[in-house]
């Protein structure tokens, strides 16, 4: 089934890089499965539960998880998400997107050197 294949690809990327995989699932759901954006986002989050759990199990098995750091980041992320949704609406999306893109390039350079 195409859906399963999508999952394998997204899960693979997520597991390989330690990220969610939503960057693959959401556009694919919208473009190829013709699902509404908000439904695609919600469905993607549900998928990420499964794939991140599996990937985490692998990393944890190798001792490659800093649980204390994760807990602290998680605490911040909860408030961050709430604050972000409330206050970041006023920032023009294009500015945000471009700033983030620049940050990502800088991060890539820092990682590569």
């Amino acid at each position, binding site marked *: 089934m195409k859906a399963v*294949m999508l*999952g*394998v*690809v*997204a*899960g693979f990327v997520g*597991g*390989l*890089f*330690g*990220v*969610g*995989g939503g*960057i693959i699932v959401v556009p694919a759901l919208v473009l190829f*499965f013709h*699902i509404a954006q908000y439904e695609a*986002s*919600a*469905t993607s*989050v*549900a*998928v990420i*539960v*499964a*794939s*991140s759990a*599996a*990937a*985490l199990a*692998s*990393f*944890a098995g*190798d001792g*490659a998880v*800093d*649980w204390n*750091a*994760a807990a*602290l*980041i*998680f605490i*911040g*992320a909860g408030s*961050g*998400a*709430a*604050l*972000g*949704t409330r206050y*970041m609406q006023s920032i023009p*999306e294009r500015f945000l*997107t*471009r700033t*983030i*893109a620049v940050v990502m*390039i800088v*991060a*890539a350079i820092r*990682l*590569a050197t």
Partner: protein
Amino acid sequence: MEVLWLVILGLVAGAVGATLGVGGGLFIVPALVVFFSLDQHVAQGTSLAVILPTAVIGTVGHARRGRVKWSMALPIAGGGLLGALLGSRLALALSGDTLRMLFAVLLTILAIRMFARSLRPPPSKTPSDI
């Protein structure tokens, strides 16, 4: 001090993730490597440890509002489980240096994609006159 900075990292990642829908993991991993001197593997594993509970909470919220298409979510998640096991095993087999380079490539590709998308004219919010 470091405790505070980790919470702040979470704040930023959470805010950006919630607003733009760009995954928090994409910021958490490089930040942990660059600013907290974590090993690339540990940074990725730690990121996953943040992503999982965040995703669980998010799913509960979305599910309550009936937004999740379970008919799609379940098969994709099934594939996701398998894919994640394969991907993570590969990541753990690769050297930290190689993985870090690959991550840098991923960031670059996504950044270019984001920038390209931002160049497209936004959909007009008001109907053009007649």
